[in-house]
C-alpha cells in the first residue's frame, strides 16, 4: 500500500481508537449508574495512574538504567519538587524548583 494512504488510514483509525477510549465510560455512565465496585476502584485511579506515569520518568536514566541513588539528578530533583508540592500544592512552584534543582545538579556534576 502507498505510504501516504497508509498514514491517512492510520490517522483516522487511531483517532477513532483514542476518541472511543476517551468517550467510553463518559458516554456509558451518562444514563446508568456505575457498579459499586467500579466506583470504589475509581477513587484510586488518580494516585495509581499518576504514580505509574511519574515514577519511570524519575527513576530511570535516559539510557534505561534504574538509578535509586544520589547519582540520579532527576531523582533528587523529584524529591525536592515533591516536598515543594506537599507544602505549596502549586504546580508552578513545583516545576520551577524541580527544574532549578535538575539543572544545578547537572551543572555541578558536569
Amino acid at each position, binding site marked *: 500500500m502507498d505510504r501516504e494512504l497508509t498514514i491517512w488510514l492510520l490517522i483516522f483509525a487511531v483517532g477513532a*481508537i483514542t476518541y472511543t477510549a476517551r468517550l467510553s465510560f463518559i458516554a456509558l455512565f451518562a444514563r446508568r449508574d456505575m457498579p459499586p465496585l467500579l466506583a470504589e476502584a475509581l477513587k484510586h*485511579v488518580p494516585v495509581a495512574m499518576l504514580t505509574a506515569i511519574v515514577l519511570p*520518568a524519575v527513576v530511570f536514566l535516559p539510557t534505561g538504567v534504574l538509578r535509586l541513588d544520589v547519582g540520579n539528578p532527576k531523582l533528587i530533583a523529584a524529591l525536592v519538587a515533591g516536598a515543594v508540592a506537599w507544602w505549596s500544592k502549586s504546580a508552578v512552584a513545583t516545576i520551577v524548583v524541580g527544574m532549578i534543582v535538575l539543572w544545578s545538579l547537572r551543572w555541578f556534576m558536569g
Partner: protein
Amino acid sequence: MRTHFSRPAFLEGIRDMAPMMLGVIPFGMVCGVGAISAGASPVAALAMSMIMFSGAAQIVATQLLVAGAPFAVILLSCLVVSLRLLMYSATMAPYLRPLDHRWRNLLSFVLTDQAFAGTLQRFKRSDDLRANASYFLGTGALLWGTWQIATLAGIVAGQVIPASWQLEFVVPLCFLAVLVPLLRDRVSIVVFAVAAIAVVALDAMPLRLSMICGGLLGIAAGILGDKVMGKRG
C-alpha cells in the same frame, strides 16, 4: 452549549495549564519530527496531531511505521497505549454526567493525561458544574492548540530545543504537583507504593504495558486497603 459556558472559568483553566506547556511543546515537536521521518507529508503529520491528539499513540504509530510493522499491529499497539484513557474516562464520568451530551462529547475529545491531572482537583473541590466544565474546556483548548503549534514547529524547523535542557521533565513535575497532595491517608500511600514498585519491576514489558499494569495493581491494592483499614472519610 452556551448554558454551560463560563468565560472566567475557561480562562482560569488556560492560566492554570500554562506552565505545563513548557513540557508539552518539546513533546509535540518530537511528534512532528517523528511523523515526517516516518514518511508522512507535512499535512498528514499535522493531521496526526489534530485527530489522534495523543503523544503516546503518535510516537508508537510512527515508530512502528518506520519499522515496517503491519497495519493491524500498529492499530493494536495504539489501542494498548490508549488503555489508560479508559480509566480517565471512567473517573471523569460521574462529574460530567449532568452535562449536555454535546459537552460530554467535546470534553471527551480533549481528555488527555495533562487535562485529567489538571482538572481533577478542580472537580473534587467545587461542584459548580458550569464552571468546572468550562475550566476543563479551557485546559483542553490550550493543550490542543499548543499541541498543533508545537507539531507544526517540529515539521517546519525540526528539533530546535536542545535535548540537554531536559524540558520533558516538566511533565512529570506537573503530575507530581497533583499526586503528592493526594498522599494524605494510609490507603493512598499503599496505592502509591504498590503502583511505584510494580511499574518499575514490570518495566521490561513492551509498549509501556508496565504503566497500565502498575496502575491496575495499585488500584487493586487500594480496594484491598479500604477493606482492611476501613473506608476513607
